[in-house]
């Protein structure tokens, strides 16, 4: 019998190669970059320009290694970040090769020639790849005695991003990020030779929603942020992992804080969700929690003076409990779209158990019954395993965006779309009104419709744009629909038909972080937690059992939606309102909402800061912002994004705790004392096999253009950076918002007689706004306005919706 030789031959799987790095045999997939193979083995080659998510550039030459191919050494050291592995390659890094080591030291010396000795005043000091690698791979002494190249100290690239050209090592990470990932070439390489420098791209407005990422990936302190400038050092920061509270993407973040105050937020790496990027809103908008108008103590309205005055928790809860107990069965709950799963669950349970009503709705925005049916039939219960995901978007052959502006509403979805489209695998179509930057940057095709005509356009796809339906027929294709769809009757129904016909899956991507979770926990008039139907006795029985209630004690009539609650409160049918973080000016009819708040006998406001509701509130209870509590956001994929408390011990209470205590005062038990308890209580409900809601079937309508003179249809959606209350206190961020303009086609401008004017005046019977305008490829007879930017607050000033007719006149004239 022969014994097999005791040698561990490495097996080389299909599509892999075998090579030797520093004397160790290793198997690597074909096409892998040498620097990554080495990294997997634990050999770190110094680098500046290399970044796993950017195309290789070979710009800095710091990663030189010795390479031998087929027994013949290459004449010069090679950049390991641009060279791919090959069979039989023999590589020697600085660890085993004096040649590579010397080459790396030489490059470092050249880089340091013009690098200023700024470390003590540089924001990157202490976490700087150049500092670290100069220590590890540089010479101890400098041989350079001449004057260094100097530039004027920081030049602002935008109000937020500052560039110090002296510190730049020309690695081009920032320019490659801007061009490849974000698609906003706001920063570019200028000049050549010794004068080569990074500068502002020509002829382009210097704005990008993703500019903060360049600060994070710059391997030196050449790019710094105005907001974080000189605020602290890495060693006095405590870093806590967190989840972004702004949009429904649910980005993983790292929150750095010092002495009870958040100093900055950085993108964390989550390949499934945000990769290594976040948008500027997520990065820079966090100082609202320290605003002067933050509510820190409970307040109760004094009967005698009519003024709100500070009160103890005991008193405030007692007053609230008494009033709500009296109003039981005649109270509505508006929760807003920014709650964590646990908090939304507490509201949902509070409404059912403590108030005995189904009058609860999370939608603080225009909404429809059709949307409710769509959410109940199609959205609730989807998870990353069963539904559309970020990676699913990346792999999709065709993506159709309907009534959804990815860059403005879910910027990380936009980045995935762009990534997919840039690789040429994915074709992106947008049904919208004009070729917005997002359409361009996703290499998309615009299918323009008048606002409100989206549903008809979807129905007509197979006859007018067969390439779209054909593309959607390919397996893996997806349809993305945004919150605006609720303003277009029949759109959800049309999309469901399209999905059925083509097999493409639908994903609903709301704008706010808490909306998806609110659907799941039943913060809707027709839904109980887990997609159970209010109208279904079996579903109610399940919930009653889990909640330990008497059979038949849950209210069995579907409740009112936000509009219904507002109307009922305004005409006195509802006596009390529980309002959690809702801005009345976000609602479809702000005037009616204010009337409702005024008319209601009792208004309980759970708020972070003083708002328009505070003025009408009888009791105000302070609640914790997301950095001061733990919780879970459900992102649009239905993925659980759990986060812990960042700033501990501030004394701020999460909504679920406040509601739990309030419910106890009202003789009801919610079991939501802490987010963990609430999550546990929710988990006990489990999944259900009770009936699901039926899909909506609403006829789509052809949108007709207004006939009368001086009228146009309004198209509108909100921009990422606008007047949102979570972006207050951030002047640097606000400076990077897009210019506030109206848009219309040249032809429309001529017809409406505004082409000679500098501004347009858009009005309804409610009011008017006057703004500068730009030409864009909108359908004739349509004018576009940003939803809530600068002075243009469409809902507040005009009371108009997407698709409403408005009057358009040259600015300044009546």
């Amino acid at each position: 019998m022969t014994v097999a030789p005791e040698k561990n031959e490495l097996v080389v799987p299909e599509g892999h190669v075998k090579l030797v790095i520093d004397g160790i045999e290793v198997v690597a997939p074909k096409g892998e970059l040498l620097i990554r193979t080495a990294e997997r083995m634990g050999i770190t080659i110094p680098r500046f320009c290399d970044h796993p998510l950017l195309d290789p550039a070979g710009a800095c030459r710091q990663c030189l290694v010795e390479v031998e191919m087929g027994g013949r050494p290459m004449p010069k050291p090679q950049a390991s970040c641009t060279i791919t592995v090959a069979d039989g390659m023999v590589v020697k890094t600085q660890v085993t090769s004096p040649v590579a080591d010397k080459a790396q030291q030489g490059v470092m010396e050249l880089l340091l020639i013009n690098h200023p000795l700024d470390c003590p005043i540089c924001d990157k000091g202490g976490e700087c790849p150049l500092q670290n690698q100069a220590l590890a791979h540089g010479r101890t002494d400098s041989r350079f005695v001449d004057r260094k190249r100097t530039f004027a100290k920081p030049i602002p690239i935008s109000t937020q991003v500052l560039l110090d050209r002296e510190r730049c090592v020309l690695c081009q990470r920032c320019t490659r990020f801007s061009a490849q990932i974000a698609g906003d070439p706001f920063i570019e390489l200028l000049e050549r030779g010794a004068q080569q420098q990074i500068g502002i791209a020509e002829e382009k407005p210097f704005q990008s929603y993703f500019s903060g990422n360049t600060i994070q990936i710059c391997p030196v302190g050449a790019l710094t942020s105005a907001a974080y400038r000189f605020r602290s050092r890495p060693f006095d920061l405590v870093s806590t992992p967190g989840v972004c509270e702004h949009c429904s993407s649910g980005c993983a973040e790292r929150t750095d804080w010092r002495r009870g105050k958040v100093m900055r937020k950085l993108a964390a790496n989550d390949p499934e969700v945000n990769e290594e990027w976040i948008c500027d809103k997520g990065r820079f908008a966090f100082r609202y929690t320290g605003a002067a108008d933050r509510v820190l103590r409970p307040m109760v309205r004094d009967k005698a003076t009519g003024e709100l005055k500070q009160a103890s928790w005991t008193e405030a809860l007692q007053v609230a409990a008494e009033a709500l107990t009296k109003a039981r069965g005649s109270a509505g709950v508006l929760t807003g779209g920014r709650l964590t799963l646990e908090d939304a669950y507490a509201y949902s349970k509070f409404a059912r158990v403590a108030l005995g009503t189904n009058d609860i709705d999370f939608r603080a925005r225009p909404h429809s019954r059709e949307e409710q049916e769509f959410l109940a039939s199609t959205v609730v219960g989807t998870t990353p395993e069963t539904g559309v995901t970020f990676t699913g978007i990346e792999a999709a052959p065709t993506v159709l965006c309907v009534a959804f502006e990815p860059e403005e509403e879910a910027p990380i979805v936009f980045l995935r779309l762009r990534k997919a489209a840039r690789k040429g695998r994915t074709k992106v179509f947008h049904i919208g009104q004009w070729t917005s930057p997002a359409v361009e940057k996703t290499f998309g095709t615009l299918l323009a419709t008048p606002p409100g005509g989206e549903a008809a356009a979807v129905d007509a796809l197979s006859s007018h744009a067969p390439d779209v339906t054909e593309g959607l027929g390919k397996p893996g294709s997806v349809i993305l629909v945004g919150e605006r769809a609720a303003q277009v009757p029949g759109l959800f129904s049309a999309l469901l038909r399209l999905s059925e016909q083509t097999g493409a899956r639908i994903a609903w991507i709301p704008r706010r972080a808490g909306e998806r979770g609110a659907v799941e926990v039943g913060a809707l008039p027709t839904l109980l937690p887990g997609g159970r139907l209010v109208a279904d006795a079996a579903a109610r029985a399940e919930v009653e059992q889990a909640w330990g209630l008497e059979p038949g004690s849950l209210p069995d009539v579907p409740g009112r939606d936000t509009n219904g609650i507002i109307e009922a409160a305004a005409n006195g049918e509802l006596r009390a309102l529980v309002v959690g973080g809702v801005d009345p000016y976000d609602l479809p009819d702000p005037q009616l909402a204010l009337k409702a708040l005024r008319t209601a006998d009792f208004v309980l406001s759970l708020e972070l800061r003083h708002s328009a509701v505070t003025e009408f509130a009888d009791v105000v209870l302070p609640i914790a912002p997301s950095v001061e509590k733990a919780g879970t956001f459900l992102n649009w994929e239905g993925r659980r994004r759990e986060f812990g408390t960042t700033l501990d011990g501030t004394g701020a209470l999460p909504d679920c705790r406040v509601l739990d205590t309030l419910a106890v005062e009202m003789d009801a038990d919610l079991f939501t004392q802490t987010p963990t308890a609430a999550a546990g209580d929710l988990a006990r409900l489990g999944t259900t096999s009770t009936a699901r809601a039926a899909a909506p079937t609403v006829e789509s309508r052809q949108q007709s253009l207004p006939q009368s003179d001086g009228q146009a249809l309004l198209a509108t959606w909100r921009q990422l950076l606008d007047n949102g209350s979570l972006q207050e206190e951030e002047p640097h961020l606000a400076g990077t918002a897009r210019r506030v303009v109206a848009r219309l086609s040249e032809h429309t401008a001529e017809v409406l007689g505004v082409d000679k004017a500098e501004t347009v005046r858009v009005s309804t019977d409610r009011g008017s706004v006057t703004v500068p305008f730009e030409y864009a490829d909108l359908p004739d007879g349509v004018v576009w306005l940003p939803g809530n930017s600068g002075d243009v607050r469409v809902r507040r000033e005009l009371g108009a919706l997407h698709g409403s007719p408005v009057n358009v006149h040259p600015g300044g004239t009546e």
Partner: protein
Amino acid sequence: MGFLDPVKGFGVTFGMMFKKVATEKYPEVKKVTAPRYHGRHQLNRHPDGLEKCVGCELCAWACPADAIFVEGGNNTDEERYSPGERYGADYQINYLRCIGCGLCIEACPTRSLTMTNEYELANDNRQVLIFTKEDLLAPLLPGMEAPPHPMRLGETEQDYYVNGPELAKRAQEEAK
């Protein structure tokens, strides 16, 4: 027991009268320390009164007792506390923690932080033993002007670091 024994002890006492006294007359007479004694810190100024501290926190980083707190700030043309971009906006040393090791002054890249010979650092109130920037800043000498004010000794911070003392001397002579 000898008969002189009762007064023998006085011999020691008497003898001590002619020895050098170890008792200090503190606080009536203050002791002069060794010149390099590690006393209270001082934040120095440039000759025109601008602060030398750039708020880099290197002192705080070096401190083994975690006694120093610094937060940097951004100089503007309208409001300038130090030459260059950055200054120490908030500066605190907690003398309840400081062990007087002097590692901080070695770390300071601008020689802003030095130590004086002042050793009277006791109090019955913990709060006042946290010295703030106002307590630590060097007094204004003749020719100095309290910041904020523009750079008087040159165009850039380079001028301050390279030729600072020289420029100041020249300015003083010109004033005469």
